[in-house]
């Protein structure tokens, strides 16, 4: 392999995926359990081990206080931002949080920041990819909702670093989806991507031009998605239970988790059938039963779905296009499976939306395409280039608490702006700058990104210094600031205090803390897998010795097998996984004829009237394969 593989990752609210280009097509990399989706759930096992994905899901019901889901909703946010979420999500925040501080979530006797929890999910995806390639993976493209602000993007990048991944690019989810679709149809035209996921909603309008994917406008709501539909149904269920059965279960984590699971199943069922039944066993032996029709469901969720209309209209307006000028509409995100959502999209854009790619996978596939573009020199993506925009305006607080916008929303990124500052007092050495993101006129209504202190301004009379501050939004949508005092030519020192982010030092220490180093981690896992495979082949060999085929081998063959088996037992005790693999391969080779003989006799048995399944095929030695199912524990 000339270059190290760069993987594409969709770090979702509900599910996460990792994908790669296989030839000229992107493909999702399955996990050990064969599943393409890794639920974004993290649980603390009884033995203190962190469990991620499908295996963690059962903890949501059994020990909800030891499991975390939908952590994406907390990325880059402060405690004062999430009061609404706290009413609906069982997040257990650390008790000593101050406003403006990075959130911490309790799990067992420790607390974790959202990037640390996300890093655990990323680490699982990284592992799945390494298992697939049989080589370490350290570089990735990660997708984020288009409407994510700077702090949320930075938090996602931090999560990547903590997981041992160099994040080469953050790509907006709807844009990634358009890449996955655009690979097939190298057409020109205007495309709308409607992305309603587990926790976020995005709308993007793109212009396709000979392989250039130019986003012209984007809008959305980072707190609108399938979770909200679930919460609505849960609230109704809890109300029913209180009214009909006289049980107040609002504080019972376990009961709420059970109801959540049931309403999600009901929601999914209603996409394909006209009605469904909720039947939930409650603590104390009572049952909650209720029939829900699709009509009722659609009426209930209508107000939530309507919240997507405003952003769509704004995006069209910003893009300067009318609905009839949209050539194609693409649906992304699991929630777009709901027929009512499709109906709404059809009405908005007067087009039948594309649904040929799996809405759960299309973002990850697009991330793999972008990863391929970044790695360069691939025929399939050679002509493709993504030009994305910043979703929110960047501003500076000026006198009177007003926001002065310096980079407007929907500006193609990278984008920059230069501002000049001076001093108000003779000899003033510092100037404070407050950077904001958002569309509102007053600073207090915008999102505070950071406060910068320009330090070490040379002593001059008031108004004399001319400090040039350059704000640059990079291709990831993340802000960089640099400053220079023009009269002295001195680079001003900038001290950054991210309003809701982790400092570099904090991230560094989390990387160190995060279990073990990536390299060791990889070796160790390879070692475990190799040992497991060794055990499998030895067991299979033992079975072979019991079979009638064994007698048909020559003495030389038997001796050779015995020798190689001993060699395997020897290297197995060492810690070099490649030696173990070599020994496995050698033993495998030597037992090839045994396997054939066993197969022959099995076929012969089958011909005598038995079926192949009944015939004892044994587990015949198999050739190790990079995606072979390894058995842990």
């Amino acid at each position, binding site marked *: 392999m000339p270059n190290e593989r760069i993987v594409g990752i969709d770090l979702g609210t509900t599910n996460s995926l990792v994908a790669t280009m296989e030839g000229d097509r992107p493909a999702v990399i399955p996990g050990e359990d064969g599943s393409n989706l890794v639920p974004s759930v993290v649980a603390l096992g009884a033995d203190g081990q962190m469990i991620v994905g499908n295996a963690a899901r059962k903890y949501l019901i059994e020990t909800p206080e030891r499991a975390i889901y939908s952590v994406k909703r907390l990325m880059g946010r402060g405690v004062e931002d999430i009061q609404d979420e706290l009413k609906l999500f069982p997040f257990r925040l650390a008790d000593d949080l101050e406003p403006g501080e990075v959130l911490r979530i309790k799990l067992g006797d420790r607390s974790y920041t959202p990037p640390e929890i996300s890093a655990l999910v990323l680490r699982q995806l990284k592992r799945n990819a390494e298992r697939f390639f049989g080589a370490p993976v350290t570089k990735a493209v990660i997708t984020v909702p288009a409407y994510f602000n700077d702090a949320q993007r930075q938090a996602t990048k931090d999560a990547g670093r903590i997981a041992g991944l160099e994040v080469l690019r953050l790509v907006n989810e709807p844009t990634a989806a358009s890449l996955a679709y655009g690979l097939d149809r190298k057409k020109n035209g205007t495309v709308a991507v409607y992305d309603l996921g587990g926790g976020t909603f995005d709308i993007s309008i793109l212009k396709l031009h000979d392989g250039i994917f130019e986003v012209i406008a984007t809008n959305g709501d980072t707190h609108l998605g399938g979770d909200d539909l679930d919460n609505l149904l849960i609230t109704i269920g809890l109300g029913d239970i209180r009214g009909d059965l006289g049980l107040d279960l609002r504080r019972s984590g376990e009961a709420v988790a059970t109801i959540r699971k049931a309403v999600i199943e009901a929601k999914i069922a209603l996409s394909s059938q006209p009605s469904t039944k909720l039947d939930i066993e409650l603590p104390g032996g009572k049952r909650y039963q209720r029939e829900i029709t699709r009509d009722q469901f659609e009426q209930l969720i209508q107000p939530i779905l309507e919240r997507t209309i405003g952003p769509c209209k704004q995006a069209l307006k910003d893009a300067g296009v009318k609905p009839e000028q949209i050539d194609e509409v693409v649906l992304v995100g699991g929630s777009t499976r709901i027929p009512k959502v499709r109906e709404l999209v059809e009405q908005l854009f007067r087009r039948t939306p594309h649904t040929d790619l799996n809405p759960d996978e299309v973002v990850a596939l697009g991330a793999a395409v972008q990863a391929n573009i970044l790695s360069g020199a691939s025929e399939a993506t050679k002509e493709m*280039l993504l030009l994305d925009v910043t979703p929110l305006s960047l501003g500076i607080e000026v*006198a009177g608490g007003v926001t002065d916008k310096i980079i407007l929303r929907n500006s*193609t990124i990278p984008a920059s702006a230069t501002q000049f500052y001076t001093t108000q007092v003779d000899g003033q050495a510092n100037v404070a700058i407050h950077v904001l993101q958002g569309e509102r006129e007053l600073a207090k209504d915008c999102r505070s990104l950071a406060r910068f202190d320009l330090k070490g301004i040379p002593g001059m009379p008031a108004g004399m210094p001319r400090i040039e501050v350059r704000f640059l939004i990079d291709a990831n949508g993340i802000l960089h600031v*640099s400053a220079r005092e023009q009269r002295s030519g001195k680079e001003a020192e900038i001290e950054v205090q991210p309003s809701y982010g982790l400092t570099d030092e904090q991230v560094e220490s989390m990387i160190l803390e995060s279990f073990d180093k990536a390299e060791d981690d990889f070796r160790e896992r390879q070692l475990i897998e190799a040992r497991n495979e060794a055990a499998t082949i030895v067991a299979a060999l033992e079975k072979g010795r019991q079979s009638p085929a064994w007698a048909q081998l020559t003495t030389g063959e038997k001796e050779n097998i015995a020798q190689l088996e001993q060699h395997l037992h020897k290297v197995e005790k060492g810690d070099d996984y490649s030696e173990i693999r070599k020994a496995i391969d050698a033993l495998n080779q030597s037992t090839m004829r045994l396997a054939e003989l066993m197969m022959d006799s099995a076929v012969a048995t089958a011909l005598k009237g038995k079926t192949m399944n009944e015939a004892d095929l044994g587990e015949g030695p198999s050739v190790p394969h990079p995606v072979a199912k390894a058995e842990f524990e």
Partner: protein
Amino acid sequence: MPGEPTASCWSCGTMRAEHFCTACGKVQPPLPVDYFTFFGLPRKLEVNVPGLEKEFYALSRKLHPDLYSGADTREQEWSLEQSSQLNDAYRTLKDPIKRTEYLLRLEGVELEEQSKTATEQARSSGSLKKQVVPPDLLEEVFDLNMQLEELRAQKRLGEDDPALIEEIGRQKLELEEKYEGLFEELKGYWQKWDQAVDEGTEEDRLKIRDKMVDLLNRRSYIRNLVRDVNEAVER
């Protein structure tokens, strides 16, 4: 930060083009140039926008950071700087108003602060906005402001006067027509400016420049007025 700009390619030594070396294609440290120069355009106002778009796409294919993901950090930084300049320049030049305002600023004009920011700032600090009412609008603006005051007072009392709202709506429509008219008028000066650049005197240019400044100021004055009307009616 960019390295010292030199006349030859940092990598192969050939005399370079503006943004990347014509011989080896490597991205070059950005030069502190204005947006017109970045695109190799003269400082003129009539711009072929489809041609500009084509050039923008072509340059994007050479300068975008995605193409330098595997390059050394110096090239990565240059590509980031260059493509942000490219995007800033394209955004400004493709829009006729932004283009005109930008050119006037290059010509040393400080346009009046007409932005909403300035309004809000003035409001919150209690100071007067440094905005002059165009004399020919004086009477109209005076009347309109009186009516808006009345409307606000009525709204505070929870009253509703359809006749007043209709009258304000009519005036707003008139203002919007004027706004469009000003844009058409401004367009007429682009060609005059471009001609003056080629063959006119300094005096000709200054005259045209001042006319355009006046038109832009009136235009943004009317825009603010329309916004005030919208606010008063919606509130």
